[in-house]
């Protein structure tokens, strides 16, 4: 009887309480499973940024933010379950954090009028906003990455790589195969020979691939790896004494956890980046004051300044900026997911905005439009300094070869549009 009375009392209290408006950001995190080491810092960075906005600024536009975390274990089915279980909370935008989950969510989120931000992963041709109305992959995609790697090799070789041999070591999955077509086009344009080397999941054993690299002696190796594949590849490259300065990974192969197991031998390894490295930004002072020292940091609070943590911060900052645009566009502080989509589609990131957020030079300047959901595709290059134990940015955010990439985006998205009978988003 007492239990029943208590239940009614709680229910009555809840019904009588005013509804507290908040801006909901689901975080489909993976703090467990084979990729947890990369998933934890991203999730921490994403959550910490919104905590900072709440603690320091009282939210965004006077409305508090709320991060709803759901564990996917980097598993596509669990990711979809997380989407279904969190979308009813008033979700504004999803970061699926997995190419597999992104592919599953594209039709669902479009139907539910909730935008997806697949930052540097997912379906590359989603950059065509005319076809993918609710998917955004700014500031750069896999094909920008392939072009940026080739551009960097061009820079190092004085602009001429004809006759050179470049090997792509890739995760044998839809993700790993993404850059192949772009690299084939670039090899035709620049006259280099492309060698393709697939590595089976999870990538714990790569002896065959690295023996082949030792035999074929490519001038450069580009890697599209993930998880344990990264650590083993860098170790094997060191074992065969492949020059690390000629080894460059995509941003998913460029975190501290990827290079540390190889120790000093990983020194000089390069990785592409779409956000800055390190913690030398004014934002970090605020993070320490309002989040870490206040005991409100996500997780163990020990990931600040790492590459994936910064990427999580950056994703959160872009989401928060899109909210501000949406609030201004619609004159409404407590926005809906549809308004958020509008905000993302009209997002402009300038150096002034980044500096105002305490992160000058943290990412490239870019703008989004109805047709272009991928931004300007600017990519930076970082290099591992083993002695200092940190990645250092060695090349600024630079343009990629859109002459090659844009036709590929148009072709792929047109095929998707025809297959799914999609109406144009930008009339």
């Amino acid at each position, binding site marked *: 009887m007492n239990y029943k009375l208590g239940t009614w009392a709680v229910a009555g209290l809840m019904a009588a309480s005013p509804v507290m408006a908040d801006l909901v950001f689901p975080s489909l995190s993976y*703090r*467990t*499973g*084979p*990729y*947890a*080491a990369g998933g*934890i810092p991203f999730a921490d960075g994403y959550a910490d940024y919104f905590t900072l906005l709440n603690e320091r600024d009282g939210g965004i536009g006077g409305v508090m933010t709320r991060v709803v975390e759901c564990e996917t274990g980097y598993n596509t089915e669990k990711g979809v379950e997380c989407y279904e279980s969190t979308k009813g909370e008033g979700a504004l935008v999803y970061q699926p954090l997995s190419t597999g989950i992104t592919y599953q969510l594209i039709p669902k989120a479009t139907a539910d009028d909730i935008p997806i931000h697949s930052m540097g992963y997912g379906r590359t041709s989603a950059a065509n906003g005319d076809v993918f109305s609710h998917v955004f992959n700014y500031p750069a995609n896999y094909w920008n990455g392939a072009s940026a790697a080739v551009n960097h090799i061009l820079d190092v070789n004085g602009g001429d790589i004809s006759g050179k041999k470049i090997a792509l070591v890739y995760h*044998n999955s839809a993700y790993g195969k993404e850059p192949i077509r772009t690299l084939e086009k670039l090899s035709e344009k620049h006259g280099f020979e492309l060698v*393709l*080397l*697939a*590595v*089976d999941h*999870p990538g*714990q*054993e790569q*002896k*065959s*691939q690295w*023996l*082949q690299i*030792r*035999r074929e002696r490519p001038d450069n190796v580009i890697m599209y790896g993930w*998880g*344990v594949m990264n*650590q*083993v590849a860098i*170790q094997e490259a*060191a*074992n*065969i*004494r492949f020059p690390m300065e000629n080894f460059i990974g995509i941003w998913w192969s460029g975190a501290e*956890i990827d290079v*540390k*197991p190889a*120790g000093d*031998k990983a020194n000089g390894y390069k990785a592409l980046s779409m956000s800055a490295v390190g913690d030398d930004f004014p934002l970090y002072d605020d993070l320490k004051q309002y989040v870490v020292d206040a*005991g409100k940091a996500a997780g*163990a609070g020990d990931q600040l300044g790492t590459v994936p943590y910064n990427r999580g911060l950056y994703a959160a900052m872009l989401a928060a900026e899109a909210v501000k645009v949406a609030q201004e566009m619609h004159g409404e502080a407590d926005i809906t997911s549809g308004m958020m989509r509008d905000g993302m589609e009209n997002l402009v990131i300038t150096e002034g905005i980044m500096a105002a957020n305490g992160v000058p030079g943290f990412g490239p300047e870019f703008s989004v439009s109805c047709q272009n959901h991928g931004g300007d595709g600017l990519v930076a290059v970082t290099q591992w300094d083993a002695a200092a134990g940190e990645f250092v940015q060695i090349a600024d955010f630079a343009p990629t070869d859109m002459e090659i990439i844009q036709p590929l985006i148009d072709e792929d998205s047109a095929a998707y549009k025809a297959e799914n009978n999609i109406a144009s988003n930008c009339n």
Partner: protein
Amino acid sequence: MPEQLAFTIEVFLNGLMAGVLYALVALGFVLIYKASGIFNFAQGVMALFAAMTLYGIMNGQVPFAHLINAIFGTEIHYFGWELPALLAIVMTVGVMILLAWMVQRFIFRYLVGQEPIILFMATIGLAYFLEGVGDLMWGSDIKTLEVGLPQGINETIDEVTFGWFGYGLFIDNLDIIASIVAIALVAALVAFAQYTKQGRAMRAVADDHQAALSVGVSLNFIWILVWSLAGFVALVAGIMWGAKSGVQFSLSLIALKALPVLMLGGFTSIPGAIVGGLIIGVGEKLFEFWIGQPFLGGATENWFAYMLALLFLVFRPQGLFGERIIERV
């Protein structure tokens, strides 16, 4: 000598070395299956748990630090000591023996005489439990295991073979060490089984549980013994694989590499695990070199290993060295 032949020799030798590493994982499965009829799904996770524990002990990590800090608001992470690798290995063996006792005491003691599928499912539960406890105890970050194992190309072999073939063969120092350790481990296990009282009791239990019980062999003790041995083998495998990639969750997936080895070598034979490992290692590497990479786009190694195992299942279901399956009606 044609360059292609030198390449083939290199691939063959590296296949042998890879096979030894697969066999190290398979050995743990064989020990438990032979003595108790349990297919231990948790063997891969045991390798991960053992390697994490070794790292934690070596570096003076406080077990369950994150949990303790979250509950009590403390900030403790390390005891402040660093132990030599050998001492840490001995202490880790102690932890694996304790784990073996707990597995027997709290799980399998209650499942004696149950169907094999029930025992198998219990090991699935054990695997998930160990995954979670391992992360809680030691954290889920990637740990660099520094136990003094040399890695990288063996310069001597490189120089000598360059003189012979005009192409220096690549053999990884770590693979050479792993091969020596695996040979020593198998020799020790065989000697233990043949020449010690406990070893003979273990073989008796493996042959017939009830007959062994009737002559006074303690089933509990023998099961703790084999789980301890499997824990030790898991530690060795965890060290060798962990030295390559760092100690991380993916270590638990090395069990996938052991399955085709077991199908080929037989689930009940220690020499079978070794020979099976070598055949799989050499076979998959040569297939990738001759056919996979030139004609099929590469990444055929896992596919080849399981296809070969499948062929053996069709023509010799008990594997090369497994006990013949005789069903009487």
